[in-house]
């Protein structure tokens, strides 16, 4: 084997030669790795740990709310825990989960051997971990108590001198910066490193959705970094009146800059879940996704409209009414891509041979949750309704549906689907089914109780309440949360146990059609030695058809191992 560098003829032949340094420990190797799969696992690991910690914080806040005039937590502690849990759910659980899945699966699905900037992506993952650690370390000093809104000028030094705000802002910069770096890697990989035959038409839906997610992050996350930097500067040198009107600043400016990312993030999470659900349902139906070209266009439109509908935060604010009208139209227009996507899912399941597996059953559950989320989104796009309900608990529900509904139900289905590929083991299906059922049931109870509270006038983000009419439903929320908690804990234990001693899963346990199922489970460092010819969105279905046609040979995948020094990848084209 020659050790001299041979410039590859095709980009898809880039090989990551990962020296296994036996003088370093496994964990140091993982941190130094340039393998996109390791980076993806870092993000996924971060999201699971964050979920557990955020769940614990939320449990405490819910305990406080089960009593009228509760005294379990002081308002300071309550808001501190609420801030941490909301921030973590969105920035450290939902976004990193789909970032990690995208980082892991995207290169595999497009037939790439590596991602474009793996070390940049790795840096991003560890920046996000660092930001998360800072956020959870901040109670030692003093946690920011202003909830996820971080509204200005409450967050300026004059009103909140505590260092907790600075910590939150630094954590936000690290996490948003980390996600941006990862998104750069994803976007470039998608554009440049496709195997031959993977044209725009033949791109799998999840790969496309991951690219759209990456572009969305690139457009929105840097603005948060900039805004947080501005807020930090204003906090240190108050003479720069940026957000504090007393010093000449503009309070509405912070809302704009912050919500541009924070309001769009749940929609980006949902895009990841849409992509994953499309793959899962297609695989379970034994066919490609129906109307996949339309679905890809719809995903693009969903992202644009989802980001632009951030204008909902201005409803009821000191802006001209004409803006209300424009943002109403933009928000309501989301119905168009949503209908195309859900119709495609139904058509896929109807016209295929649907096999109910754990991921596919809960992909359908996510489809229902997605519909509910769209209904809520449309309701909140109408200024008259939005102003009326946004300050109530229904506003919290609106946020939760696309953050936790997509992140938890959609994300867990996606994790279950790709679990055999990532770990090489099969998960325990009956236990996973039970875990998902409990998670969904708990989520449903929480959603119904929250909706009922909201229409009754119960405000959002309340540390205590004085009317006992609200107590019953708050207890119901706690009960639902505990049910979900058992479900999630069961799933995590299932993942850990199956990873350790589950049955070995082959390359392709779901009999799916996309390229990642061609590689071994788990894939080696260079993902593929051979890549079959790609002619459609579901190359593996084509391969199976060719085998079934009786030729007996894997036509189109005559490949040489790159380590033997021959650069050419394929010798027959179809």
């Amino acid at each position, binding site marked *: 084997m020659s050790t001299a560098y041979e410039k590859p003829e095709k980009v898809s032949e880039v090989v990551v030669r990962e020296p296994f340094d036996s003088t370093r420990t496994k964990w140091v190797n993982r941190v130094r790795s340039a393998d996109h799969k390791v980076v993806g696992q870092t993000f996924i690991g971060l999201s699971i740990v964050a979920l557990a910690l955020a769940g614990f914080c939320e449990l405490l806040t819910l305990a406080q709310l089960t009593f009228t005039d509760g005294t379990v937590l002081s*308002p300071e502690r309550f808001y501190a825990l609420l801030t941490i849990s909301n921030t973590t759910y969105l920035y450290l659980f939902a976004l990193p989960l789909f970032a990690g899945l995208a980082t892991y699966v995207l290169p595999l699905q497009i037939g790439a051997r590596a991602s474009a900037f793996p070390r940049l992506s790795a840096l991003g993952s560890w920046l996000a971990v660092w930001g998360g650690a800072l956020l959870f370390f901040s109670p030692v000093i003093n946690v920011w*108590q*202003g909830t996820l*809104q971080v*509204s200005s*000028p*409450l967050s300026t030094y004059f009103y909140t001198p505590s260092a907790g705000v600075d910590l939150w802002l630094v954590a936000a910069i690290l996490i948003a910066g980390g996600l941006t770096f990862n998104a750069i890697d994803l976007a470039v990989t998608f554009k440049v490193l496709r195997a031959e035959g993977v044209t725009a038409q033949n791109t799998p839906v999840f790969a496309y959705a991951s690219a759209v997610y990456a572009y969305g992050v690139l457009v929105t996350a840097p603005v948060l970094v900039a805004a947080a930097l501005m807020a930090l500067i204003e906090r240190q040198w108050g003479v720069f009146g940026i957000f504090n*009107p007393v010093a000449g600043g*503009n*309070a*509405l400016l912070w*809302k704009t800059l912050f919500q541009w990312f924070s309001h769009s993030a749940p929609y980006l999470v949902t895009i990841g879940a849409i992509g994953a659900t499309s793959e899962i349902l297609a695989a379970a139906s*034994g*066919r*490609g996704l*129906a*109307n996949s070209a339309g679905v890809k266009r719809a995903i693009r439109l969903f992202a644009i409209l989802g980001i632009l509908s951030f204008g909902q935060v201005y409803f*009821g*604010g*000191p802006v001209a*009414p004409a803006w209300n009208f424009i943002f*109403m*139209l933009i928000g*309501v*227009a989301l119905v*168009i891509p949503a*209908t*195309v996507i*859900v*119709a*495609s*899912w139904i058509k896929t*399941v*109807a*016209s*295929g*041979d649907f096999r*109910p597996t754990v991921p596919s059953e809960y992909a*359908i559950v996510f489809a229902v949750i997605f519909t509910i989320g769209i*209904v809520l989104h449309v309701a909140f*796009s*109408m200024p*008259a309704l*939005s*102003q*009326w309900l946004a300050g*109530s608990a229904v506003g919290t529900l609106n946020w939760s549906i696309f953050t936790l509904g997509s992140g938890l139900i959609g994300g867990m289905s996606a994790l279950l689907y790709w679990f055999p590929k990532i770990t090489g083991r099969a998960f325990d299906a009956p236990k996973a089914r039970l875990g998902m059922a409990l998670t969904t*049931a708990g989520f*449903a*109870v929480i959603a*119904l109780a929250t909706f009922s509270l909201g*229409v*009754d006038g119960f*405000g*959002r*983000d309340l*540390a205590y*309440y004085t009317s006992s*009419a609200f107590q*019953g439903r708050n207890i119901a929320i706690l009960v639902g949360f505990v049910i979900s908690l058992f479900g999630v804990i069961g799933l995590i234990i299932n993942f850990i146990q199956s990873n350790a001693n589950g049955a070995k899963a082959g390359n392709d346990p779901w009999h799916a059609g996309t390229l990642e199922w061609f590689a071994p489970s788990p894939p080696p460092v260079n993902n593929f030695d051979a890549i079959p010819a790609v002619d459609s969105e579901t190359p593996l279905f084509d391969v199976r058809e060719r085998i079934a046609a009786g030729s007996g040979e894997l036509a189109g995948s005559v490949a040489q191992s790159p380590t033997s020094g021959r650069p050419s990848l394929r010798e027959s084209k179809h």
Partner: protein
Amino acid sequence: MLIPAPTFRRASVFALVAGSVFALLAALPGSASAGALWPDSAGSPTTSLSNTLFFIVFGLGLIAVIAVIALFAKAAGSDSEGADDAAADGAGKSQTVGVVLFLVFAVIGGYAFFQNNSVEPSEVQSSFKPDQLQDKKLRVANNLKPPKGASTSVYVTGQQFLWRYQYPGVKGDWNTYSYHDLIIPAGITVMLDVTSSDVEHAWWVPELGGSISAMPGYINRTWIRADKAGVYEGRSTVVSGTNFPSMTTRVIALSPRDYAAWLSGKQIEITEAMDALGAEVAGGIEQAEVDGQGPSELETQAEDADAKENE
């Protein structure tokens, strides 16, 4: 259509559980005329609009969710119907359905938007004239166009953690103001100029309309109208600090005659109280001089400093 037994069992158990939870919640008593899953019907023209919108949007939404569940159940149970038409078929149809849904909601939303911006003028005859108090340095933005007809106005200031209301149009030495309770005449449009003197707040009385943002540096001009006399509870909806949950407010709508009486009575109260305070302060100074305490320590220090300088 053959649905495999386990799927059917699971689906029906799920439907049963979901249906009973739903029914239970719907049967729970809510407040006033609200059910557990829908809000109170209105006390004001703004909320009657929001109420109608609520039922339309969530009603259509409920139908959509049930349709999606039913379609998936049917799709999962049915046998393969031919996978040839992968790309072509669903494309045009679902997009058309989507555009139709968009138009439906856009028309509903647009109608609501214009309705909100052109409400019937109030029928009450009154001699109130709008007389806005404002800080000229603040930016004014109109949130809703007020209806024509009799109207008065109130200047609302959100503070940590109280709402302060200033009433115009009363002759006197002092501003007429009140904290926490907003007194308005029933049946008459009340223009609100909402601002904040510190951090961001939002004023929300559910029975009188949506939440109104109180931004420091801005005046948010909008209007409310209470159709009937009564007491309406409200609160702030933007977290403004740790005491935020107790930042409530109350709107007391009186008949126009009672309102006029209250307003002038309030001005008299305030004038008397301020006069009494002035008298107390003046009396305190006089008493101090009589007791021989002389000027305060600070004044003495200042004189000493001056004396040293002049040396």
